[in-house]
């Protein structure tokens, strides 16, 4: 029901375009392109729901939502549509790095603001940075670098790295190696979409690593963790939060217990506003929020904070207002570096069981005031 009414709202927004085509009169129109169908839909739905939760009741904000089906060409087409026909002021919503690379450079080139609620490809943090592009989630390497730092502090000496053989996987492992000072005993790159990890688990068992550090998003991570639990191999397991998020933990179950993962947010994070967010999200949608929901929520908060300060038609003023990041993030302190990517704390979480629910608990801080290394290449 909820979904239908949102879609209906989006449709009404669509048909109402003509009247608002020029001069929004203080109103701001957001185009959200995100993944709402197909295998990756869970992430997009959470970003959307988090965003809409924060935007609820704000009559100055008009949101058009479209489904990119996780396909780059569809995303480009939707971005063209939102920019050319619907005259949106701000774009947001994209989940995947490859779609982000397809859409963001051309959107900012056409003078539109883009707020990234997920995905931070390195090209856009460095040479390809833009005054109109803000990242409210993380630069892609952030969680991995924090993982490496935490490993240094916690007597982890020999690590086995594993990720899918695609840019996000390779970047992630590079990020870990950038900060990790111990020994990397082996690096394995699996095929994207691989579902059987028996061969890799055998290699891990045979190695003298004390810890496995892996990044396997979505179904790949679920498969690996279930098979890992059945293998009886006794080594520490670490990774970024993406493989252990709320939407995924339910499918892994007890097999994930004890796994350490880095995240900038957790539902038990004790900062003002977070408990309220978690409660409101549960009341509204009947499920626990994920980090994607938190990112969507923060994105809307940031946008509304800037709307209060400047008119979006005055790009310089609006950019300055966004850059102040004058909102209460559910992650606690949050500010922007010069390349308009986050400076934030990254925590180490552990997967635990609360009653019947498998979920994450914060066990410490992995990195304080973390920002990315690509900013030096950004001439802005």
């Amino acid at each position: 029901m909820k979904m239908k009414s949102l879609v209906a709202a989006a449709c009404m927004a669509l048909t109402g375009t003509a009247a608002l085509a020029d001069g929004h009169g203080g109103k701001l129109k957001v185009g959200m392109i995100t993944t709402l169908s197909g295998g990756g839909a869970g992430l997009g739905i959470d970003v959307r729901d988090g965003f809409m939760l924060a935007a609820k009741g704000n009559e100055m904000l008009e949101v058009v939502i479209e489904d990119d089906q996780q396909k780059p060409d569809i995303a480009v087409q939707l971005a063209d549509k939102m920019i050319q026909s619907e005259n949106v002021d701000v774009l947001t919503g994209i989940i995947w790095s490859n779609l982000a690379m397809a859409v963001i450079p051309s959107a900012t080139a056409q003078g539109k603001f883009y707020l990234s609620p997920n995905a931070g490809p390195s090209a856009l943090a460095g040479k390809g940075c833009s005054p109109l592009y803000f990242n409210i989630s993380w630069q892609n390497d952030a969680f991995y670098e924090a993982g490496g730092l935490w490993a240094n502090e916690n007597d982890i000496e020999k690590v086995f790295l594993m990720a899918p053989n695609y840019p996000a996987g390779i970047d992630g492992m590079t990020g870990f190696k950038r900060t990790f000072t111990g020994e990397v005993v082996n690096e394995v790159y699996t095929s994207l979409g691989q579902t059987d990890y028996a061969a890799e688990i055998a290699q891990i068992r045979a190695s003298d690593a004390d810890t496995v550090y892996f990044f396997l998003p979505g179904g790949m991570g679920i498969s690996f963790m279930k098979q890992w639990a059945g293998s009886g191999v006794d080594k520490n397991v670490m990774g970024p939060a993406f493989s252990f998020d709320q939407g995924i933990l339910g499918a892994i179950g007890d097999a994930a217990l004890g796994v350490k993962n880095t995240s900038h947010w957790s539902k038990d994070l004790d900062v003002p506003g977070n408990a309220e967010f978690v409660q409101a999200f549960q009341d509204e949608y009947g499920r626990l929020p994920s980090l994607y929901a938190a990112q969507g929520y923060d994105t809307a908060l940031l946008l509304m904070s800037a709307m209060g300060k400047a008119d979006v038609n005055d790009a310089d003023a609006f950019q300055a207002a966004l850059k102040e990041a004058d909102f209460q993030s559910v992650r606690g302190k949050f500010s922007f570096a010069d390349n308009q990517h986050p400076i934030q704390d990254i925590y180490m979480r552990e997967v635990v069981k609360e009653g019947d629910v498998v979920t994450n608990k914060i066990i410490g801080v992995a990195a304080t005031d973390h920002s990315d290394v690509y900013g030096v290449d950004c001439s802005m």
Partner: protein
Amino acid sequence: MRRETILNTLLYLAMPVAAGLAFVMGETFLITLITRAAIFALAAVGLNLALGLGGLVSLGHAAFFGIGGYAMGILAHHAQTYTPIMDTWFVLEGTKSMPVIWLVAIASSALAALAIGALSLRTSGVYFIMITLAFGQMFYYFAISWPAYGGEDGLSIYVRNDFPGLNTLDPMQFFALVFAILSGVLWWMGRLARAPFGLALSAARQNAERVETVGLGPFRLRLVAFVISGAVTGLAGALFADLNRFVSPTMFSWQMSGEFIVFIVLGGVGRLFGPVAGAMLFVLLEHLLSPVSDFWLIYVGTILLLVVLFARGGLIGSLAGREVAHD
């Protein structure tokens, strides 16, 4: 005039008329959408030579579409970053010129079609379907795991490539360019179908032995058809990449191959304008249904199923009737 001829004329005119209307109304996005339909139509027109005329159900044409796309991506990427593609034996520079990119796209996809065709055409029927599908997947996995050109992230080209005398970034001009190419290829395909080559190919589909006894080798006929077919789809891939200013391995995905076949069947198998009608219908459905429900693909699936089961001959077949012989 035959009903199908009238229908074809209407279909042919529909695109520029719709684009013109959109232009007048200032709906630039609609022009982009129509351009997309025209490019899909071109890709499917290519496939239709193998599938409609030759009876070769290729479920791997996305391979050629992707190769065309990457020809554009790689050339433009090197031109945009001012790095040579190769400088070991001789220096090879990238380029932003569309005609050069098209030639490279056509040549490389034709070459790939020659290799895939030479292997796959040793088989027929259901083997052929599965083998082409598998080869398509091979390219898909290769594109994802080969890091040099972005892997799964693909390649972004910031500005559309150049065509002498045109501002290709202007949606209307780019549409005109695509439409001109589509028209040229349609004209050529129409001639090809009536030429001795087309007739022999068609005869080989209906009765391979008879063609063989006349002294024509069905294998060579089919291979030539497959290569031309792949080359046209490759050209469409280069245009598609330019439309999006972006290439990624999804162009190689088997769903893409499936969609090309869908265009042909929706429009009408073996009809010159079948792919054009099918691609227009599909893009229209996608545009109209996706805002209605998150589960809009169910409707697309149902429509497709109903067309296959009950409306044989597709859109053109239903409208123009079946009085025309299949070829």
